[in-house]
Structure formats: C-alpha cells, structure tokens
C-alpha cells in the first residue's frame, strides 16, 4: 500500500483500504440520496410552505415560504367561509387554480429511493456497530477532541490545507465528526421525521408525533435535515477533490 505523506504513529491503527461493504453502502447511499433529494424538491414544490405543529395550509400562517415553484404565494382562493357562528375562527375556502403538482411520480419515486436508504442503511448500521467499524474509524475519540487539536483542524480546513487522501481509514478529526453527525444524527433524523409524515405509521406509533411536535414540525425538520445533508455532500465533494480526486474515487470503488 502506498503511503503519501501521512505519518503513522505507533499507537494508531494503520491506514486501511475501504472495506467492500463500506464501498457498496457508500454508492447505494449516494444514488438513493440523490434520488431522494431530487424527488423531495419536486414534492416540496407542490406546497413550498413550511409550518410548525400538527396542521398548516394555505389558509393558515406559514413559518416560511420557499420561492421554488409557481405555487409560491399564489392567491387563487375563493372568499373564505367561516365554519362557526362567531365568524372569526377556522374557515373554508375553495381553490380556484391548478397548482404545480408532480407528486404522482414524485412521491412514489421518493419512497422507492427511501427503501434503498432505509434497508441497506439498517444493514450498514448493524455491521458498523457490531463489526467495530464505527468504534475504530468513525466515532471521534475523546482524547482527540482537545480544543487545540480541533482548532488546528478547523484552521487547516478553512485554509483548504487538505492532506492527500490515504484511500481509507484512518480519518481526520473533523472528518470523523462530520461522518458521525451524518450517520448518527442527520440520517436517523430524516428517516424518523419522514416516517412521522405517514398517517399509517403514526396511527401505530403515536409517540412519533409527540417527538417532533406534530406532522408539520416533522415536515419542517425533515426539510432542514435535508439542507444539512446537502451541505455535508457539498463539503464532502470539495474535500474529495482537494485530497486527490482520482485516488479517492479509486479507493471508494475498486478499493485500494
């Protein structure tokens, strides 16, 4: 194995190539996440308004409106009719226009891709936990998290001083933190909030709605988890390029 400019200390594990199951998981996740991102944005375009709590619609105030389709701030509604005598409470209104809506294929594609994230993802998590991959390669060690070490790695990254890739573990400090946040926080969060948007799943497991604070809260968290994962992917690709694109791609495909 070729060592390019990385010193090995005695007490650290040697640099290893990516295991085959890690490489396979990586590319399944890549295709699945890209498909989920694409179909997810298509779904969001049908109703680009985010809310907090259980309920939210065009007749209630939004947390934020995203300018991503012609449905953005569309006014085409008949005059609202109040449901109750008082006249000031909840009302009904009929929509007068055809919205942008590609959810027929958008939703189904999203769920096909979601199965490819959830099922191989579960296998990956089990293999990572019981095979020791997470403990030895992914989870940052407490003694590495000393402030001066973290600071040095942050400064190196900000100055884009990225050492040439080793083609596998062991990973840098911020690298481990980023992978840990993705594997143990963002990915589980996006899956759980996704499931919370299923009326059949929350009928069976009502605690999911209490966990996020309601359907629309889950939808909003789902969206921001996506934004976080998107930010990770962008930084990840920049790091791959800066640390030697050809070698890193070879390492994650043929595995050397």
């Amino acid at each position, binding site marked *: 194995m070729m060592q390019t400019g990385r010193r090995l200390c005695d007490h650290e594990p040697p640099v290893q190539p990516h295991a085959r199951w890690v490489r396979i998981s990586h590319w399944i996740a890549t295709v699945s996440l890209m498909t989920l991102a694409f179909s997810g944005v298509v779904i969001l375009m049908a109703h680009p308004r985010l809310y907090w709590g*259980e*309920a939210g*619609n*065009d*007749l209630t105030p939004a947390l934020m409106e995203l300018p991503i389709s012609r449905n953005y701030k569309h006014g085409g509604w008949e005059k609202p009719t109040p449901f109750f005598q008082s006249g000031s409470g909840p009302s009904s*209104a009929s929509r007068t226009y055809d*919205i942008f809506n590609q959810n027929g294929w958008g939703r189904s594609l999203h769920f096909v891709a979601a*199965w490819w994230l959830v099922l191989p993802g579960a296998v990956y998590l089990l293999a990572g936990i019981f095979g020791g991959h997470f403990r030895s390669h992914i989870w940052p060690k407490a003694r590495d998290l000393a402030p001066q070490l973290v600071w040095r790695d942050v400064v190196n990254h900000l100055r884009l001083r990225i050492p040439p890739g080793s083609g596998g573990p062991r990973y840098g400090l911020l690298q481990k933190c980023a992978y840990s946040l993705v594997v143990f926080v963002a990915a589980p969060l996006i899956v759980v909030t996704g499931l919370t948007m299923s009326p059949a799943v929350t009928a*069976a497991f009502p605690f999911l709605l209490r966990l996020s604070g309601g359907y629309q809260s889950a939808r909003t968290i789902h969206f921001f988890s996506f934004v976080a994962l998107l930010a990770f992917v962008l930084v990840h690709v920049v790091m791959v390029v800066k640390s030697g694109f050809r070698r890193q791609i070879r390492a994650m495909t043929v595995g050397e």
Partner: protein
Amino acid sequence: MKTTGLITRRRAIITGLASAGGLLLARYPKGLPPTYGNLLRMGDTFTYAAHRALLPGQSLVREYSDADITSFPATGTVNPGVSEKSALGDAYRLLQSGAFSSWRLSVEGRVATPRTFSLAELKQLPSRTQITRHTCEEGWTAIGQWTGVPLSLVLHAAGALPTARFVVFHSYDDWVDSIDMLDALHPQTMLAYGMNGRDLPLPHGAPVRLRVERQLGYKSMKYLHRIVVTDEFDDGGKKGNIQNGWAWYTGI
C-alpha cells in the same frame, strides 16, 4: 367478517417480496394492486405489503379537541355540478336543488343484500364523531371534526360476504377508488355527512364523503354515490389512481 378476507402477514411478506423482486411477470398474486410493470407502482406495492406485514391492524389515528380545529382548504373538485360536464354533473345538480333528499347511496357487489341508503337512513345508523388531521399529498394538513356512520356498519347492514377483499367507491366527480378490508373495517373509517357540527359543505363533498384516516386525503373521496364490495382488485380503469399515475395505497 372472517379473517380469510383479509391479507395475512405471511402472504403480505411473500407477495411483497415477490413483486419487489420482479417475479410478478410470472403470476401476479391476488389481493395486491397491479403494477403494470411500472417500477414506481412496484415500490407502492412493496410499501403497502410492508405496512400490512409490520404495522398492527387496527390502531387508531390521533384525535384532537375542538380547540385544535383549523381552517380547511377545499381542493380538487369543489362542485361536481359545475366541473362535471357528464350525466353525473347533471344528476348532482338535480340532487343539490332538492337539498339531497333524493340522494341514494347504492351498496352492491359481494354483499348478501344489495341495497340503497338515503341520507336519513344513514343518519339512523349509530353515528361517530371524530376530530382528525387531514393530510394532503401536496404537503398541507388541516384538522376538522367529522360526523358520520362507520363504514363497517354500512357493510354489515348490506351483509358483505366473507370472501370480500376490497371496497370500491364511485363518486359524482367521476372518480373510482378502493380500499382494502382492513381499512374498510377500521373503526375511524366512516361515511361522513357532517363537518364541524354542520351538514357537510358542498366544497368538502356533500352530501356524504369517505374518511380513511390512516391514508392521505385523496383516499377520502368526496361526493359518493356508489359502493361496490369486491373479491378482486378493481383499479378503476381510467377513473382510478393507478392508471392516472398515482399510488393506490397512501398510508405513507
């Protein structure tokens, strides 16, 4: 109703895996929606089989209090008398002019005694009132109070046969959709004639709409006029979800 009409756990797993594996070309299992070889519809069917295999049968959706009721958009068809140029639209206008007193819901197919129900007859059956969340595929939600008769009581009154697997609904806005027996017999699945303490408003499906609380809003069909109990899957043809590119099962 006997359990033979329901999809069993083992059957759901086996047929789900078979359809996902592309084995459906050889012999498509009864009791699952057809996919017509479409990858997206295979995914829908896999999700349906997984839900039926893994989720408990008749758990209830969350119910809310009066204070939780929100404003409620009316989308899709908001008046079949205006939007439907067919005979159905004419028939609906006639019913509407008579305050739906001549409206009849036909219950037919695999039932011991095919019959019709007037609005008054439906209201004579034991009623149920529930405040639930309507979840639209577009992404919005609204909370409303529904009063109606549980579908299971109507099926029982007509004597649905033990071999029955699906209940198919036909509406005045010319749509055909169906649910399986598990959802049809769910305690919160109802034929609703009241909303927020009043008669069901026209834009929300007057005189009677379906409520299928464990699926998305578009399964809760408005403007009902016919219910057909079947042993085999009916995709509704050109008036159904699947041939229009939409998932049949929308518990997700």
